[in-house]
């Protein structure tokens, strides 16, 4: 059974600081997704990582995937308040299968 673990589950960081969220998963997969969820809202797709060594960047967020270590990271650079949200990683066993989500990391960026 595929399991996905995220850490930390809660993260309070100061504006301007850097931090990394980790996502580990238990079985072989080469498809990993990062989503953002604001309170009371649905899931917004941030990144899709499809191969070992994949790295994608959008603004202050950068995601990477190491399929051999079964690890993905979401790195936040120079955090700003607008990044406050809950971030989920999700893993797909193979094509056209349901996503298995981590518990999410609730990020709060404070001045």
């Amino acid at each position, binding site marked *: 059974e595929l399991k*996905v673990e995220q850490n930390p589950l809660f993260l309070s960081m100061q504006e301007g600081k850097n931090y990394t969220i980790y996502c580990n998963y238990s079985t072989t997969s080469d*498809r990993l*997704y990062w*989503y953002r969820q604001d309170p*009371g*809202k*649905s*899931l917004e*797709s941030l990144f*899709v990582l*499809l191969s070992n060594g994949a790295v994608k960047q959008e603004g202050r967020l950068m995601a990477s995937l190491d399929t051999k270590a079964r690890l993905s990271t979401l790195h936040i650079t120079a955090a700003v308040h607008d990044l406050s949200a809950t971030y*989920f990683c*999700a893993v*797909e066993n193979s*094509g*056209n*299968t*349901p*996503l*298995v*989500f*981590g*518990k*999410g990391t609730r990020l709060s960026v404070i001045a």
Partner: protein
Amino acid sequence: EAGVAQSPRYKIIEKRQSVAFWCNPISGHATLYWYQQILGQGPKLLIQFQNNGVVDDSQLPKDRFSAERLKGVDSTLKIQPAKLEDSAVYLCASSLSSGLLNEQYFGPGTRLTVT
């Protein structure tokens, strides 16, 4: 391109009552998913449809939950009778199901409160 539509957005019912949710996926998307998201947790799959057939319903509590996707487009999810622990957000997602990338697009969700 219109996104995944869901209704209602909010629903409050008493335990033992029935409730139904509706989802209209993105046009042309063959695969439709229903997920349950309990407060403070990640979404968990309830059921997956490919066109109008069920692909995976292993985590659907079939004694009280049912779902259908007649004609392979819209889908309804029903709970009868509801329990307190069914309070959650019910998310519908759809995907194109072709090629290497099978990205799922999520609807706004239906927030259910069972009292």
